[in-house]
């Protein structure tokens, strides 16, 4: 038995295939997308659950109403009969008894066939393939012209229009008129397409239902007999949840790109953590370690009653290793290492430093460490070969192949500033506009200035409004007079005078 559900749309309303599919899947796993507003589903056996087919249809309609879907429902023993009935009759629910298909279809207008068979033998393009991608196969017009699906759809529509025009010229009005024509004569005049129209009109067309593939949901859940607290018992529970999840991902040849764990707490609230993995991973042990490390930093505030883990699947990685370079860490190992370091040191305390486009002294950013990007033209093996050759030739300070000095030769020994993230407040004695004595904590001490260079004035964001946030140090606008000072007790420091707030600070040490 088949049921067809057709959504009634008001003017300007767009059909929602997702909602319709969710409704249909609540009743049957075998659902075919006929078009954007119509689905056919296999309801064979459901009459045993609801008592009879009328009850099945009523339940279907009731569920649709509860979800705000206005629709018509038709149920018949054949898919084509249910489809023609749902398009041809105005009743909200029609159940065609078995053996009465021809009689039920007889009075329907011929135009209903145009809506049903216009997609040709393949049906509507939306019905082909995965329903989740159905919108991708629906005819669209792009800036490069019409897509192939669009062309096929238009061609089928023109063909159906021509067929309908011929039949009208013959004086046919209803499906019964078409069904009554002699089959051989019709085949001789209209070909196989005409004969297929007649089979549809007789309700004899027997194309099987082609169910849309269901989007796999990679979710595992475990209800606990009693609440658990602490990470150690939770790690065992996570292992039991993640093992089957890993098996399911492996069967689908997929891996988790995003991992979400939802913990239902005894306080009746969800504790949700989501991990965005840098590479698709499906090893349950790695996933468990990553979840535990994250939960170590963000522990649930109460006992856990239920554990649910959801993985967003992604295609697995294909990695080609090189024989000439040493094996690096796999993505799983690197992710685990970074997660361990983050759990140890804190959020945003581990990563790759990056310069940002700012003149603010000490401005930087910390970005996720992504070592996969190789240096262009300087793989490790090549670099090592070059160094060995240079050593053998007695050369130092190598030159890059294009004539530019290599980073080693260009940089040489360059003095580096050790920057104090929180500048040290200092007392500075000034004579003739130049600092002559500096006193500060953290090992700087109180020393006379042996020599100094400066001042260099830097300022920024003075054009912006001074809001309450900007009043805080190291935020918003700034204006400094920088000095390099060599102290008699040893050490060269960079100090500055804050021209906006007053006072002297030690910002770093040259080392």
């Amino acid at each position: 038995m088949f049921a067809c559900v057709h959504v009634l749309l008001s003017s300007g309303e767009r059909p929602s295939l997702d909602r319709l599919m969710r409704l249909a899947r609540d009743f049957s796993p075998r659902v075919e997308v006929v078009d954007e507003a119509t689905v056919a589903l296999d309801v064979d056996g459901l009459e045993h659950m609801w008592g009879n087919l009328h009850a099945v249809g009523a339940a279907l309609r009731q569920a649709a109403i509860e979800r705000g879907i206005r629709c018509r429902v038709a149920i018949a023993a054949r898919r084509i009969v249910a489809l023609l009935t749902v398009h041809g009759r105005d009743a909200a629910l029609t159940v065609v008894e078995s053996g009465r298909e021809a009689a039920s279809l007889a009075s329907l207008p011929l135009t209903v066939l145009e809506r049903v068979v216009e997609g040709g033998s393949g049906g509507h393009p939306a019905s082909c393939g995965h329903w989740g991608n159905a919108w991708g196969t629906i005819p669209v017009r792009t800036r490069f012209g019409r897509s192939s699906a669009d062309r096929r759809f238009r061609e089928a529509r023109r063909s159906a229009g021509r067929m309908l025009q011929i039949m009208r010229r013959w004086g046919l009005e209803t499906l019964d008129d078409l069904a009554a024509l002699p089959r051989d004569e019709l085949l001789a005049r209209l070909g196989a397409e005409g004969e297929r129209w007649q089979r549809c009109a007789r309700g004899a067309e027997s194309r099987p239902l082609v169910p849309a593939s269901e989007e796999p949901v990679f979710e595992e859940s475990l209800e606990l007999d009693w609440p658990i607290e602490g990470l150690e018992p939770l790690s065992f529970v996570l292992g039991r949840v993640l093992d089957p999840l890993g098996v399911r991902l492996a069967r689908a040849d997929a891996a988790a790109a995003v991992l979400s764990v939802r913990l239902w707490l005894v306080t009746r609230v969800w504790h949700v953590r989501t991990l965005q993995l840098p590479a698709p991973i499906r090893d349950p042990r790695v996933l468990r370690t990553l979840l535990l490390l994250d939960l170590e930093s963000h522990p649930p505030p109460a006992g856990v009653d239920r554990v649910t883990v959801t993985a967003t699947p992604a295609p697995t990685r294909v990695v080609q290793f090189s024989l000439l370079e040493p094996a690096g860490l796999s993505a799983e190992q690197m992710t685990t290492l970074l997660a361990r370091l983050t759990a140890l040191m804190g959020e945003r305390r581990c990563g790759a430093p990056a310069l940002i486009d700012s003149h603010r002294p000490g401005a930087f950013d910390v970005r996720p460490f992504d070592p996969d990007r190789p240096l262009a033209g300087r793989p490790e093996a090549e670099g090592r070969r070059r160094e060995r050759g240079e050593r053998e030739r007695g050369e130092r300070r190598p030159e890059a192949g294009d004539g530019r000095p290599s980073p080693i030769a260009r940089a040489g020994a360059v003095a580096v500033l050790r920057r104090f993230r929180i500048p040290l407040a200092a007392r500075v004695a000034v004579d003739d506009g130049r600092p002559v004595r500096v006193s500060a904590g953290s090992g700087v001490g109180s020393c006379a200035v042996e020599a100094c260079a400066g001042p260099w004035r830097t300022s920024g964001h003075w054009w912006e409004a001074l809001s309450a946030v900007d009043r805080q140090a190291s935020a918003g606008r700034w204006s400094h007079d920088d000095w390099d000072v060599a102290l008699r007790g040893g050490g060269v420091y960079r100090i500055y005078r804050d021209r906006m707030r007053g006072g002297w600070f030690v910002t770093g040490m040259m080392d």
Partner: protein
Amino acid sequence: MPDGEENTKMTALTKPALEDLLRAEKLGNTLFSDVYDHKGLEFTMAPTGIVAIDDALGGGLPRGHLSEIVGGRSTGRASALCAAFAAATARGDLVALVDTLDTFDPESGAAAGIDLSRLLWIRGRAGGGGDGMQRTVDRALKALGLLLQADAFGVVALDLANVPDRLLRRIPFTTWFRLPRVIEGRPTACVLVADRPIARSAGGMTVVLEAGRSAVRWVGGANQSVLLRGFDLSVRAIGARQPYGGRRRGLFVTAAEAAGLPVSSS
């Protein structure tokens, strides 16, 4: 055969066997014989790119060993470390820095030639008082252990410069035996940066950086603006083969802002 001659012959026969046994037990690096006989030099050293330091070290920082760079304030410790990082990242190696007091300046690092995308920066926390600082040091050591176990980095450094001595003395001495065992035979060069020598493995080296009096160089004069030009330093290396320190070598560290100025105008 006289007893003395027999003993000499036995010694000659058993010494190679004993050395082979020590190498098999991974104790061969304690031998005074050249441990690099069986490996290519390029796979056992991580050059820093600074001629004076590489000469003193005999090629670079030894891989698979714990070495250290020590010196006082403004003696070029961070400069030497950044040069080693720059050379390693130019070779294509990954490098990692455990920055205990969070004093690394990315801008200076980029000026020194480090490819920042290949540097894993582990930031500790400055300040926090006695207990807070102790926790910071403990975490830094744990982070160093994780990085060394990962076996993915060419150079891994732990910056303990400016950490108070009383905190360094609280570190269990077994730490300095455990860490070298982790990287033994691996291609990672582990470097400690500190104010004074703390620890090195049997095959590791200590790079001592020192600044004499009037070591700071300036350019400019009375009628023109003065600019920090750089530092005159000396470097020597101490290791198992030169336990009293090698020859001192001169090293000039240029201030980044004065990189294009002539050296003579000081």
